[in-house]
């Protein structure tokens, strides 16, 4: 019945090591000038990878039932709704408002 049994301490150790390596990687890459956009994209990609590892293994999401996935997904989905629709205003304000004609 329990999901925790499915994971051994060894797996936790591996995940922990991976998280440390990713931290080192993201810190290192931050010092390379890849252009502001690319730096951000890489930093966020690594952060997402780390978060996914924590979710899947430390939080046992990988071994949880679909309902748990749906809830975790809903949190993310709603956050993205808020983000994208708000940014649809912020990013188009100057180009479309067209104060001057």
């Amino acid at each position: 019945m329990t999901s925790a049994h499915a994971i051994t301490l060894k797996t936790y150790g591996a995940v922990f090591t991976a998280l440390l390596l990713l931290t080192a990687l993201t810190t290192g890459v931050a010092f390379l000038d890849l252009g502001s956009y690319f730096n951000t994209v890489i930093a966020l990609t690594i952060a997402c990878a780390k978060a996914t590892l924590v979710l899947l293994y430390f939080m046992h999401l990988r071994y949880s039932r679909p309902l748990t996935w749906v809830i975790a997904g809903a949190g993310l989905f709603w956050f993205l709704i808020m983000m994208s629709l708000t940014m649809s205003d912020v990013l188009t304000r100057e180009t479309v408002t067209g104060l001057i004609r």
Partner: protein
Amino acid sequence: MSDSRLVHAHQFDDAEQQRDAASLGMWIFLATEVMFFGGMFLGYTIYRSMYAEAFAAASNRIDLIPGVINTTILILSSFTMASAVYHAALGRGRALQISLLLTIVLGAAFLGIKLYEYHEKFEELLVPGALFSFPAPFSAAAEIFFSFYFAMTGMHAVHMIIGFGLLAKLLFDARRGRYSAGYYTPVELVGLYWHFVDIVWIFLFPLLYLLGRHL
């Protein structure tokens, strides 16, 4: 371990239903937390898109070393928390207690370093308000950056402090032998919470500390 601990509350049919319900409730709560922090991430993103250079410059004023150390500490504490759940599931009371204690110590270390960082900001006049001071071109936007810095890390710290309370309670109960291989739901739930707080930091670290390092 007596079976009396497997007894479930009156509204449930059996212990498994109770455990499922508790875990479901925790996940729903975490979805709530996503939106709670999400509001601040949204604000951060908007200003970041408006004042990219100022944010980068402001971010470079944050000392990187304590940040890296804290990130490592927090990941380590997530690991000890995960092993606490692991040992609890196997009914290893002693290992459970040690893991919990380690988690608490690591969390305290994190907060200690955080406090040191806040102190540093005070000394460098980087705390938003009347005394805030930042070199001319970016002063306004840098104040916004540090407003977010304090709001986000502050909220994160508040969550850690709540986590402390929960961990202390777990440790207390574990010492009294309340948990067994058949009943360790509270350990699991606090674990979920603690890992979530870790995830928040995983995003805060690059967004606050690493923003302008390439400049």
